[in-house]
């Protein structure tokens, strides 16, 4: 059914541009990761981009220097705390509602305006990550809206053919969302036990042959690795040493418990790095 409240364009389906070399040319050689395995990309964080909101923040993660690879650009605004509508049932603590939305021009494929399952998924995980950090009991009967627009998704423009590419991109997007939402919450003056930040670690297999053992890297870019076996996104509170949300994807044999814990540890390490940026940004705003 067409959405009559928006301008929908032509009746017939339109096709995104197909390039000459899409079929003929083999996949380009994967660009190798230039960073050490335990370094995350540089990020830029700023609060107060939307003055009419209670709190807001903007996060940008740098591109890898390769043209055509876009970094992550996120804008987050927090509205509230405000009283819940009369119709809603009594709540002894603050009700969080999170919305994550990709802009139509954020990814390789044009996105629609209606929320798709990926965005719902991101919203749920974000809510879980933040709920652990907010002192929700201080605001009974009130609600707060956290809205994130992904202006530019972390996606390679040229490699759309990677299998399950989007699945791994979601991890990076979520970790960015957690960090930027945490900054916006602090900007809104909502009490938190600690600043929560996201970090991603992935188990990657290099150069195709199975003889080399897979290794763990932080902040992976799917186009820089031959194959990603598994990835996990961690939302971590550094001073309390607590994880508020853990999202794990991929295949790992159940016997390799050690590998699993190692990945989570690496994710925590990435989160600590992001947290340092977050703290610096917030102290700058105050001071």
């Amino acid at each position, binding site marked *: 059914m067409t959405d009559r409240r928006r301008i929908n364009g032509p009746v017939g389906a*339109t096709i*995104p*541009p197909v*390039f*000459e070399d899409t079929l003929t040319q083999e996949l380009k050689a994967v660009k190798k990761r230039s960073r050490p395995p335990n370094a995350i990309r540089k990020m830029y964080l700023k609060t107060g981009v939307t003055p009419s909101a209670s709190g807001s923040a903007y996060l940008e993660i740098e591109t890898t220097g390769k043209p055509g690879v876009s970094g992550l650009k996120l804008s987050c605004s927090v509205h509230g705390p405000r009283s819940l509508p009369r119709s809603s049932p009594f709540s002894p603590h603050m009700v969080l509602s999170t919305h994550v*939305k990709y802009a*139509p021009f954020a990814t390789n494929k*044009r996105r629609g305006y209606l929320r798709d399952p990926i965005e719902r998924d991101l919203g749920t995980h974000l809510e879980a990550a933040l709920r652990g950090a907010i002192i929700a009991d201080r605001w009974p009967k009130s609600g707060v809206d956290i809205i994130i627009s992904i202006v530019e998704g972390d996606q390679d*423009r040229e490699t759309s053919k990677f299998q399950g590419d989007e699945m791994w991109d979601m991890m990076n997007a979520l970790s960015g969302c957690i960090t930027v939402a945490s900054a916006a919450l602090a900007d809104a003056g909502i009490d938190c036990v600690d600043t929560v930040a996201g970090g991603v670690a992935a188990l990657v297999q290099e150069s195709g042959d199975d003889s080399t053992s897979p290794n763990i890297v932080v902040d992976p870019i799917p186009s820089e690795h031959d194959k990603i076996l598994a990835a996990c996104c961690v939302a971590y509170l550094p001073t309390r040493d607590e994880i508020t949300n853990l999202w794990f994807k991929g295949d790992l044999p159940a016997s390799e418990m050690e590998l699993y814990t190692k990945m989570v540890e690496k994710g925590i390490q990435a989160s600590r790095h992001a947290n340092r940026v977050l703290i610096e940004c917030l102290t700058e705003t105050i001071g």
Partner: protein
Amino acid sequence: MAEPESTTATTSASLTFSRPVFAKLSPHPYLLRNLSPADGQPATRTNGRTPREARPVQINVSSLSHAHGSALVRTGDTTVICGVRGEILPVGQIPQFRPPSSQQQQQEQEQEQDGSSAAGRRELKEYDLLVPNIELATGSAPQFLPGVPPTPLAQTLSTRVYSLLHATGLVRAEDLRVWYMPPAAAAEGEQDQGGRMEGVEGSGEDEEAREQQLVAYWVLYIDLLFISFDGNPFDAAWAAVVAALKDTKLPAARWDPDREMVVCSRTETKKLDVRGLPVACSAAVFLEKEHGEPGEGRHWLLLDPDRLEESLCKEVITMVVDCSDGEAKVKSLEKQGGTVLGRELIRAFAGVAEGRWREVKEAMR
């Protein structure tokens, strides 16, 4: 010594409110008092501007990598991002498609000097080749929250941008056509074997026998995202649309007869030819009497209103002017909500809009 001073300070602090509190409690008297100060001072608005002063414009282009053209426009606290994305619409997908005859093309070539042709306009409109959409529900202001269908304001804005795009003839259908030149049956091998994107140049006299075929159109999806909203959304959105279209580079497209589809070149791009530079300029009329009949009492024309002023004014005027040919041409004029603005005031407003055009032009460079 210091003690009495501090006591007066505390008492006065407890009696007066800060400016934002006044603005929230009684917005209309607050703005009125600011506009008519007691002691002969010039009228200033609550945001510190004079009535005829607009916020400075900042425009950044080409910051998005997935869009074919993009722009970020910031006027004061209103920030909007626009991304233009081209997609291919094969003519087979268009119901009731009427191919333009070669005769028509000839006419178009002649008409090209004076703007877009009637046939081109028909194509743009009938096949819906321009798709602008405005999203306000990004938390840009407390009243726009996601999870609900687009607000009436968002719908109105999208429609206004849509109709203005067609009315101004900013983009011509000729630039959006993808042509295919079928190979000649005999040996005319020295001509280029594929189709060409710009058909008008390809049709020389000597190849009149082989007729070009129109195989597809580019559809431009123009998506606008408000990051921050503080009044006057239309001016900012329209400036973003124009800047993004001027920045748009579509890949060179040709028809591949073997695959029966349109393929694009990765390296070769073609800049979209945007005609003119229409700039929107809005103002709101603020009346002295909050509930009185329009016409009684004083009134102020507030250029580029912010969110507080917009909520207090009923009458709004938007004028779209283009001075790129030297003299100011009014491309569109919209006025609603009152009867204060008469003929003289609107004529005077055209001068204000011209000044705004210069500012925006300067920002676009």
